[in-house]
């Protein structure tokens, strides 16, 4: 029954609308969203384990307007990541958002966004991806401006303008592509290969359009500045959306575009990836540099995200098996790591009202478990073996070397140093400054917040020690491409 793959998309969306219509009170709402996200996760696991090669046309209007779902390995992995992290974020946001009024609207869009993101994961062709991509912008916008302040509205406007600009570029690219290939379905190796090779510059132009267009959501320099501005949103939004859903959707779309539509051989023929490589390297370095200068903790993490996304994009522009695996691994690992980091920072903001670096002296002693998780996640991000961050960077470096790009490992090393430079001050300030430990009373966050944080930290460690299952899955997808 192939209809089942539509359910993980519709279930969260319907839950969201349910919240909007019946407006339950605090307790009922929590029950609804917790059960919905868990159910969704189980459904997705079921689909991954038991359903292979399913596909479904939601609505087929004509030969291009074909909303078509076809989860393949990469799509399934992304969907699992999204749904698992959504459960944890649900618990976290219940505590973080507390019992304010008008939270039903917030959670409505929260749930709708989950459905839309899974729609992106399960998309079977480019037009479906584009549809869900646009819907993602629309459903995340109310979350960004949730606070309602003037600054929030400004940030929201910027987000909308950047996103629509990117989506327009993507649409242009899709139209040009469709005019040549008459087909937009995701096929390993790309669909262009089946069409007689026309003007390579034409495909170069399409590639650049699509890369820049999707790159807006993936915070590619110079389209990255919406991301720090969007930090004005509540922390659950910043962490989930801007570490997981929105930016990773951009990356995911980039991956689809590169390997499943255009095909890396075509791109390599046009040398498009060399031009984009420059932008990617700038992204990696600039993100890290700017992160060091940020005093606001969330903004620091935001620039860190920009830089880390550059790593993933690096995996996507170097066309080697290893770098592809590295990129995909980092897509997953960065999500888990960054969400941990954001959750910790959010806990600090919520419980102690502190947002700047200089304010958090000694906080490690007041919230030891929280800051310990932060430390673990930071170590993972810097890339110290045997943590998961190291595994992904290792693959990326190997891929670079296989291609003969010797400065890729150098850049990775340099940026690891920079990562340490912006993360370690937080840790040292938290643990080694302020009043001595025995003078301070411990007041950890509520379990709803604390448990996800610790769970995530542990997850990162486990993924570092036992990444093989994941690697095998990604490798099986990669083998169809190379």
């Amino acid at each position, binding site marked *: 029954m192939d209809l089942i793959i539509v359910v993980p998309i519709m279930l969260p969306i319907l839950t969201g609308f349910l919240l909007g219509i019946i407006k339950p009170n605090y307790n009922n709402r929590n029950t609804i969203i917790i059960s919905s996200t868990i159910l969704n996760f189980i459904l997705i696991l079921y689909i991954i384990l038991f359903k292979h090669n399913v596909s479904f046309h939601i*609505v087929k*209007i*004509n030969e*291009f*307007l074909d*909303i078509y779902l076809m989860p393949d390995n990469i799509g399934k992995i992304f969907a699992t990541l999204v749904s698992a992290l959504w459960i944890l974020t649900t618990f976290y946001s219940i505590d973080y958002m507390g019992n304010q009024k008008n939270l039903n609207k917030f959670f409505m869009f929260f749930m709708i966004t989950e459905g839309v993101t899974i729609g992106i994961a399960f998309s079977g062709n480019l*037009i479906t991806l*584009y*549809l869900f991509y*646009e819907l993602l912008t*629309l459903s995340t916008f*109310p979350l960004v*401006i949730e*606070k*309602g*302040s*003037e600054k929030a*509205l400004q940030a*929201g*406007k910027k987000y*909308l303008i950047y996103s*629509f*600009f990117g989506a*327009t570029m993507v*649409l*242009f690219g899709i*139209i*040009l592509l*469709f*005019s040549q290939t008459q087909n937009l379905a995701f096929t390993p190796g790309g669909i262009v290969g089946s069409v007689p090779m026309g003007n390579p510059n034409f495909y170069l132009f399409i590639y650049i359009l699509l890369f820049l267009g999707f790159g807006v959501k993936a915070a590619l320099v110079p389209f990255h500045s919406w991301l720090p501005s969007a930090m004005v949103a509540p922390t659950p939004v910043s962490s989930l959306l801007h570490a997981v859903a929105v930016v990773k959707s951009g990356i995911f779309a980039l991956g689809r575009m590169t390997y499943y539509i255009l095909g890396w051989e075509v791109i390599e023929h046009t040398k498009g990836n060399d031009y984009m490589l420059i932008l990617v390297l700038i992204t990696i370095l600039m993100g890290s540099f700017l992160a060091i200068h940020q005093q606001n903790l969330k903004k620091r993490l935001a620039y860190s995200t920009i830089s880390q996304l550059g790593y993933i994009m690096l995996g996507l522009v170097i066309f080697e098996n290893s770098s592809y695996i590295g990129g995909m691994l980092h897509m997953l690992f960065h999500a888990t790591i960054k969400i941990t980091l954001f959750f910790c920072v959010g806990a600090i903001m919520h419980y102690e009202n502190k947002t700047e670096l200089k304010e958090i002296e000694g906080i490690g002693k007041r919230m030891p478990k929280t800051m310990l998780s932060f430390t673990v996640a930071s170590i993972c991000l810097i890339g110290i073996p045997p943590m998961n961050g190291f595994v992904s960077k290792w693959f990326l470096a190997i891929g670079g070397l296989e291609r003969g790009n010797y400065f890729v490992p150098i850049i990775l090393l340099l940026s690891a140093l920079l990562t340490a430079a912006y993360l370690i001050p937080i840790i040292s300030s938290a643990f080694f400054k302020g009043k001595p430990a025995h003078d301070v009373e411990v007041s950890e966050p509520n379990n709803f917040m604390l448990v996800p944080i610790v769970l995530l930290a542990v997850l990162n460690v486990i993924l570092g020690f036992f990444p093989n299952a994941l690697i095998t899955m990604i490798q099986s997808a990669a083998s169809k491409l190379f």
Partner: protein
Amino acid sequence: MIKFIPLINILILILFSFIILITKKEKNVKLMSFASNIITFLLSILLLTRVLLEDFIVLNLGKNNSLLGIQFYIGSSEAVISLTFTFVMLMILWFSNSSVKKEVSEIRISFFYILINILLASLLGVIYSNDLFNSYVFIEVSTLSACGLIILKDKKENIKATVKYLIMSTIGSGLVLMAIAYIYSITGHLNITNINEVIVSSYQSHQNAVLIILGLFTVGLGIKSAVFPLHSWLPDAHSSAPTPASAALSALVIKVYVFMLIKILFRMFTYEIVNSFIIMDIILLLGSMGMIFGSIMAIFQKELKRMIAYSSVAQMGYIVFGIGLGTISGTAIATYHIIGHAVTKSSLFLISGLMIEKTSSKKIEDLKGIGREMPITLGLFTLGAFSMVGIPILPGFISKWYLSLACIEVGRVPLILIILASSLLNVLYYFPIIINGFFGNENLDGKIYKSKKIELSRLIPIFFLVLSIILVGAFSSKLINLF
């Protein structure tokens, strides 16, 4: 029997308008008008089904094959457009049931219904007729009834708008009449099919004349269809008229003239002939400038209805652009956009009417926070706006997509940038209304939830219109293949 439907439609509408003229009670007036429009709507459905089966219908009034007789030609495009127009008019009338009292003084209400009937009759006449002079007569009738509709509301701005519209329209009609005279003098026929035969065989020797005729028709019909730069009457006229009238004007009236242009360009002069003249490039240019300029002007408007009116200018740009491409696919998209825009713009105008009525203000900045007060209404507005912006599945997106594909077909790829730029611009003026309506703390401060709720019964026609927006999008492929 079905063959006579076009004639029946027009006659019924005019007949009922006369009856309304002598009806005293308001209730009966509305009943008459409603009845006549429902009949035309149902007959249009019949007409469409017959045309779908039999390709096209030709109806001659009077002797068959007379050279100068009145002839109606209903092909698939005419039938679909006729159905759309009757449907939209029906919904507008349903809406006006409750809103006409508020904008038009008591004595004039029956005039409103009379004028609407005559307007619809004349619009249908232009669509159906295959005969140049017949079309001219109906064009004139529609101009006058449209002017009448604007002037129903007795304010200063209305009078000024009507004067402007009347003068510009008359210039347009004059040019059209000149063109008809010219064509008659060259070909000796007034019937479009007959003229086509003559032109095809002999246009080579009359290149200059054909060029002049094409130019006259384009400018003349262009003035009446608010093609850039001849659009300056539109914002005043459409924003000051009573709301149902604005909806009818923007959604229906300006469309028939451009449809007439399509008939003339492509049925009277064939595609090959028209493409060999520079006039197509000029049309293309005007269309593009209209698209961009209309949207830019809309961004700067402070009043809601003026903004939507400028948006109409931009949308007419799309249609003209489609014509200017000079291919069958371009024309098919232009026709599709006529239908899509008709349902979308009418619903937007009707919704704006509701919002203006409840906030007692025409300005956009007074609409802040209206999302909390009238959530369903603003939600419907959002849907219409999404179609304008180009969210997939809705007709706006489909028009843009196919227009872009048609551009590539003609080999003029950079034009796609103009299409995409104009949809981005649409975001800039539609979205602030939605955002300020639904979100923003100081916007929502002090607004009581659903305090300005509209009784559902008034919203139902809008519901139908919005539903049809979605349906038009969903069935787009079938529709486009028809044209």
